[in-house]
């Protein structure tokens, strides 16, 4: 077999195999989210999930992914909170190691991370992060938002159309 044909076939087979092996796993990519009983934001929550948690994908519906935890619990996560992991052989190989996928960088916590922010802050003492940290304290949890929607006749509580 000619080398170019081998490469093309090898690449196609690799992509097929990666798709087969990786299609049924998703990894949580946000700091924290909830496993929900139904595919909607204000549904009852079952348990808390955090960045890096691996779940088995068993279905999907309009932006939501149905998943199963390692302990066999079924529920829903929004697609913006999870990703299908992608792994690059090049990042694992000592001779070819030159690039990595977003999944690998995210799981390793590499790239721009807390350590980089600390270094930036040390060099820029005039830039204050006090209110940035306080901003994170002001939040509206889903129960508050749902109550706000209900009282304001918004979302599924909507009135005049």
């Amino acid at each position, binding site marked *: 077999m000619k080398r170019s044909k081998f*490469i093309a*076939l*090898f*690449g196609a*087979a*690799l992509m*097929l*195999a*990666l798709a087969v092996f990786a299609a049924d796993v998703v990894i949580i990519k*946000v*700091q924290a*989210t909830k496993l929900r009983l139904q595919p909607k*934001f204000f549904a009852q929550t079952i348990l808390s999930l955090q*960045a890096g948690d691996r779940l088995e994908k068993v279905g999907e519906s309009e932006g939501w992914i149905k998943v199963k935890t390692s302990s066999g619990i079924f529920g829903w996560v*929004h697609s*913006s909170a999870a990703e299908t992991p*992608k*792994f*690059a052989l*090049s*990042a*694992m190989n000592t*001779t*070819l190691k*030159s*690039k990595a*996928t977003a999944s690998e*960088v*995210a799981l390793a916590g*590499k*790239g*721009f*991370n*807390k*350590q*980089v*922010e600390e*270094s*930036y802050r040390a*060099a820029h003492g005039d*830039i*204050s*992060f006090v209110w*940035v940290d306080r*901003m*994170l304290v*002001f939040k*509206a949890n889903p129960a*508050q*938002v749902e109550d*706000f929607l209900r*009282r*304001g*006749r*918004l*979302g599924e*509580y909507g*009135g*005049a*159309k």
Partner: protein
Amino acid sequence: MKPPRPGIRIWAVIALAACLASCEMIEQNVEILSGGRVTARDAQKVLETGEKIRGTFADITEEEEYYIGRSVAALILAKYPVYGNETVIQYLNTVGNAVAAFSDRPEIYAGYHFLALDSEEVNALSAPSGFIFVTKGLLRRCRDEEMLALILAHEVGHVTGKHGLQAIKKSRLADLFTFAGTEAVQRYGPAQIARLTNLFEGALSDIAEQLIERGYDRKYEYDADAMAVAYGSRTGYEAGGIVRFLETMVNDASPAAAQGWFKTHPTAEQRIDRINREIGSLKTAPKIDEVRTKRFKQSVGALK
């Protein structure tokens, strides 16, 4: 020895690739698995065409975006003082999170967070990863919850569209992706951290220049307006709220109006025309509701 038949070779290659993709085999050397018939350069070609190796702003991870967003937020706060009224801040966070829940990116690394700025400029700013700011001058222009909600939905649109991240120079991203792909360490050493901090500073500068000084490109503003109409109406707000807000800016020659949101945006008239077309294409168009206007006045009406 007779060479193997082509069919056997094909199945052998498929089996080889399948093994390669499995978790157990993935760490083994490509050269070994390819039986020495593929050089390192060839294998790299396979890898580059077959995988989603980081290449564009869209491959910046959620965590990286969060740390970029935190520092861009800090740069915004270095320019504007905070309006620390907790009633106003809590109200902004509730309205903002309501429209974010109906956006295309309801979940973001550390959630959406909103803050008021003590400035008479009419301005709203959004840092990557959902750090969103509105000035007192802008809040004073809003007469009801719909107007505020649609402006916050516009800013959420900039975040979901990753418009801030798109300001980062491609060459800087290429350096980051190569560097972060090669340095497989748990904690960076002094030389590595110095290099990354340099790239980080450059990325912040790219974003801050666009966000604070120059403003988003016209295309991104129109995109964010379209997203505001979509997210606002999905939430149940009257999408015309943004038109009523923009109408307050038409022919306004005051210094407060000339700065901030309208310093660099397309003109109010240009935006109104496009937004009205977006609203006209909605399947259902919610109407304004007095119950919401009342609570808006209770929360924001007494703005000092």
